[in-house]
């Protein structure tokens, strides 16, 4: 994969991606980022900056919402993937865990997990991965026959993650895993995310409002604002940078501009 170069190609690369909704509304304005294999990358930024849109552009879920990648390219494992339908992308190893822990409420925990593995047909492998899910999230094992709609917020988020694991993806796109989850459970979920990254070698691209917890587990971070990249750096550096606080909270132009000059150059 690395070819003649010593630096391996990133697992995922976005190059100058533009996304337009409904043929008129420009949401991403030339966004570039790369996600190395095996890493955790955090994508931070204020509300409406285009974080969720970025994930949907990657997973192909834009289409169902009237959005489109109008220019630039998205590459996964060195191949162009923009414009492919979601089912192809899941098969290639990209799994999108959508915002708001959207579990199938009328299906049981076990059935939800089965749906996560929909694109796979190796029964023994699926059984193994189901057992592994229950290892990561013992509470799901205890509630396997319950309807997912009756789980608590944290448990539903765990189920959404478990569903992702069932697809055996190389890359999981996570949209706000802390949303609507009790603070103590947030810590637990992020600990599990790091474990999944280490043990399953799954790469994570993480969108989060809660920058503190996200940067605590990430290796690398990007901050976007109004569809553009304004900051990037090692997670530790970003976490230490005072301007980051302002930037991802949507704090004034000044902070953003200062950040741009200080970190990108």
């Amino acid at each position, binding site marked *: 994969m690395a070819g003649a170069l010593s630096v391996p190609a990133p697992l995922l690369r976005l190059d100058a991606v533009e996304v337009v909704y409904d043929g008129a509304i420009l949401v991403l304005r030339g966004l570039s980022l790369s996600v190395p294999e095996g890493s955790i990358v955090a994508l931070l930024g204020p509300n409406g900056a285009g974080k969720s849109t970025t994930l949907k552009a990657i997973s192909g879920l834009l289409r*169902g919402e009237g959005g489109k990648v109008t220019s630039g390219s998205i590459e996964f494992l060195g191949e162009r993937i923009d414009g492919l339908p979601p089912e192809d992308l899941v098969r290639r190893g990209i799994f999108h865990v959508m915002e708001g822990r959207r579990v199938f409420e009328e299906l049981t925990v076990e059935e939800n997990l*089965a749906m996560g593995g929909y694109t796979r047909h190796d029964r023994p492998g699926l059984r193994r991965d189901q057992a592994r899910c229950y290892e990561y999230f013992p509470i799901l094992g205890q509630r396997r026959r319950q309807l997912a709609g009756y789980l608590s917020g944290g448990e539903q988020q765990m189920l959404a993650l478990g569903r992702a694991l069932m697809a055996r993806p190389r890359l999981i796109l996570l949209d706000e895993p802390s949303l609507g989850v009790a603070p103590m459970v947030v810590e637990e979920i992020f600990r599990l995310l790091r474990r999944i990254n280490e043990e399953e070698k799954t790469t994570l691209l993480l969108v989060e409002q809660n920058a503190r917890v996200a940067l605590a587990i990430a290796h690398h971070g990007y901050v976007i604002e109004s569809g553009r990249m304004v900051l990037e750096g090692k997670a530790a550096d970003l976490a230490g940078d005072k301007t980051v606080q302002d930037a991802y909270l949507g704090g004034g132009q000044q902070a953003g501009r200062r950040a741009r000059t200080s970190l990108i150059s």
Partner: protein
Amino acid sequence: MELFLQLLLNGLVVGGIYALVALGFVIIYKSSGLLNFAQGEFLMLGAYVCLAILEETRVPFVAAFLLTLVFSVALGLLLERVVLRPLLGQPLISVIMVTLGLSSVLKAVVQALWGSHTRPFPPVFATEPVMLGPLPVSQGYLWSLGCVALLLVLLTLFFRFTRLGLAMRATAFSQQVALSMGIPVRRIFALSWSIAAAVSAAGGMLLGAMRGGVDGSLAFYGLKVIPVVILGGMDSISGAIAGGLIIGVLENFSGGYLDPLVGGGAKDVAPFVALVLILMVKPHGLFGTAHARRV
């Protein structure tokens, strides 16, 4: 007592057919949010196709029945591909209007191919009645009831235990989330049209065999689907089944007990009176979900 049992049985037989048609309607509504106004035409077409197979090939009824189901599945797939898929992304109301147009087209096709007069259906069931206690029951009724029950059980098992059935329920809950797991949502829509066409066709064939003839009036069974699904709940499969049986029984009871008193017509009005009363208490139907989801 005998009258009561007789009416109850008739009601269940007709109600079972309503349940099949309503089930098709609910499956399409659940998976794509569409109201399919061509459900009654699927029923009529099924009866005609089955009759044509019987006349042309002289195979036994069971074989013709199964062949017609296969035909209906193919028809569902075809309709999804050539009629509905090009409309993807259009406002829901336009697509619903297209199903109304589809019902006219199907009716016209049937008339063009087979004419508008009643065509006799070859006798399928033995004519001498079976005695159930004091009650003489026609064998066709029993076969029909058994057949409907079998189909309903098979479909319930399908939705509960198969991968594809679960994927259909997942899609009904949220298309976006289903897509995000790699469930091919468009194929799921196609499948829902196939199942809807097949269950309705089954109803049509049973009706044709019981009545001994088929004609264009079979399509009117599609109209009954509206009170049935509103009563049972638009998005509930068990509601469609219960609603179908309730409306069928109600019709027959009011036909048997009220018509002599009011001089006829109660049979047609009763379901709607019941509907209004039930909706006053349960606005989303007996089994419907309160938050009507736009899926």
